[in-house]
């Protein structure tokens, strides 16, 4: 299957600091690709480069074979590549219904209200549509972020730590939701530290360390990779023994 989203040899440098070096990525419809790695590995920088918040210093990012790395953020979203953020971003004082309209308005939907309702139903927030976004619990704000993205009718969904700070029940809900979205044909790129979520839901996992890809493959393969254990998973193993 040809990839919807591709990153080819993408590097991002901030002055003397190389945040990403020659990173390759491909995500196809109906697939969950997880990007993992320690803090500062360049995961969010990769999302920022894909979604037009920063320009890659070199390399190319393609959506359906078309280069998008010189397009502004809003146009990339209109094309169908939409993200959520590591630090929750919602339209604070607006109601959920008003905030979720954003994506539908941007895509010129003929019935944006219906699209917004549908997005809220998908994440299970339809009963709270009248509430202000900043009155929601943290977990619900995470779900609202996904609803906002869904209303923009994406084909590629980039989720930046959607399960962070959530309890087991909420994490399980996120896993179910991502699974449903995958069956609906979205290409999902997931940045997540919760390894249970990553290993449960991912079709492929890519590991970044200091801006470079150190491993890529099926979850079981990546989990067994000595470089990944040394750079990232080894810490969790120690925790598990201690716990």
């Amino acid at each position: 299957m040809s990839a919807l989203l591709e990153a080819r040899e993408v590097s991002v440098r901030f002055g003397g600091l190389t945040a990403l070096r020659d990173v390759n990525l491909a995500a196809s419809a109906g697939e969950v690709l997880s990007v993992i790695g320690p803090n500062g590995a360049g995961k969010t920088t990769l999302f920022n480069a894909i979604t037009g918040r920063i320009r890659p210093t070199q390399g190319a990012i393609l959506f359906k074979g078309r280069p998008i790395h010189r397009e502004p953020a809003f146009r990339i979203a209109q094309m169908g590549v939409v993200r959520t953020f590591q630090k929750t971003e919602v339209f604070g004082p607006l109601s959920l219904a008003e905030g979720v309209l954003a994506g539908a308005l941007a895509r010129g939907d003929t019935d944006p209200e219906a699209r917004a309702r549908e997005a809220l139903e998908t994440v299970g927030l339809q009963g709270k549509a009248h509430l202000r976004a900043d009155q929601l619990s943290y977990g619900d704000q995470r779900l609202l972020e996904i609803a906002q993205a869904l209303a923009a009718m994406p084909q590629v969904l980039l989720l930046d730590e959607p399960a962070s700070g959530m309890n087991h029940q909420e994490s399980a809900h996120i896993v179910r939701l991502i699974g449903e979205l995958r069956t609906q044909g979205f290409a999902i790129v997931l940045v997540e530290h919760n390894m249970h979520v990553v290993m449960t839901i991912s079709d492929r996992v890519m590991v970044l360390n200091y801006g470079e890809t150190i491993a890529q493959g099926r979850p079981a393969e990546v989990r067994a990779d000595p470089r990944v254990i040394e750079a990232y998973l080894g810490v969790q193993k120690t925790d598990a023994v201690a716990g």
Partner: protein
Amino acid sequence: MSDSTRFALATGLALLALLAVPWILRNDYYLHLFIVSLIFVVVALGLNLIVGYVGQLSLAHAAFFALGAYVSALLFLKLKWSMWIGLPAAALLTGITAFALGWVILRVRGHRFVIITVAFSEIMKLVATNWVDLTRGFMGLPGLQIPALSLPGLGAIDVSSKERFYYVVLAAAALSFYLCYRIVRSSVGRAFVLVRENEVLAESLGISAFRYCMIAFVVGAALAGAAGALYGHYVGFVSPDLFNFSYITIMLIMVILGGKGTLIGPVLGAVLFTFLPELLRDAAHYRMLIFAVILVLATLFMPRGIIFPLVEHLVPRRWRTRHVRTA
């Protein structure tokens, strides 16, 4: 009753009351204040689109107001064009100027945006002051008149008296209000609010902040230009004083203390803050001191503007429109 019906009803009643003002008010001075405040309603509505709806603090608005006044004045004095052509020409030229300025400055935010708008205003003032051949510099452009208004089927109507010119500015204010109402209630207005509340998020969902800020900036500037043309012809004189910082200060007070991000707030603000300094004239030397104290107290105790406490105390909850509840 729906939000729209309530809003239309309230607006209709307010308009009826305003139509009766020259009949009830047999006082030239107060009528003058009403005329000036209605001109500033147009200005404040335009500034509100920029400051209140897309959340950009533009200090160039007084310059657009003055530019509109100069355009119409120069067309009238140099080319003998009637104010009725000068008025739309002023709005158009001001809108085009705002588009050119916006193309550059709407790519920056925060203090850089504010500073560039101040610089633009100062440059415009320098041009008006130093291009003496065209503008007569500090001497200004006197001799502006309000020509008769020719309407199909009605012939030429003399609107130069205060009583009649009041209806001209009332029509301008009502049209501006309607225009802003339509914009704010449209998908464009919704996008304005989304950009104001979280620009990064709005862009990540496909909304071009630049595009919507540009729409607000150009429409707001065009309204200021039209108001400037009305003002110039009403007072009969245009000078570089119109670019003074005091103008943008009072415009911002009207919008922010009126209730930015609402439609009614800036209208109330324009009327209140035109009348208030005048009503304090009895206080002689202490007039501006009292005015300043009122402004400080209003800012401290009504940070969202006078419209919100007014609505909360006077209008039952079920009668409140969506815009006053959520803006």
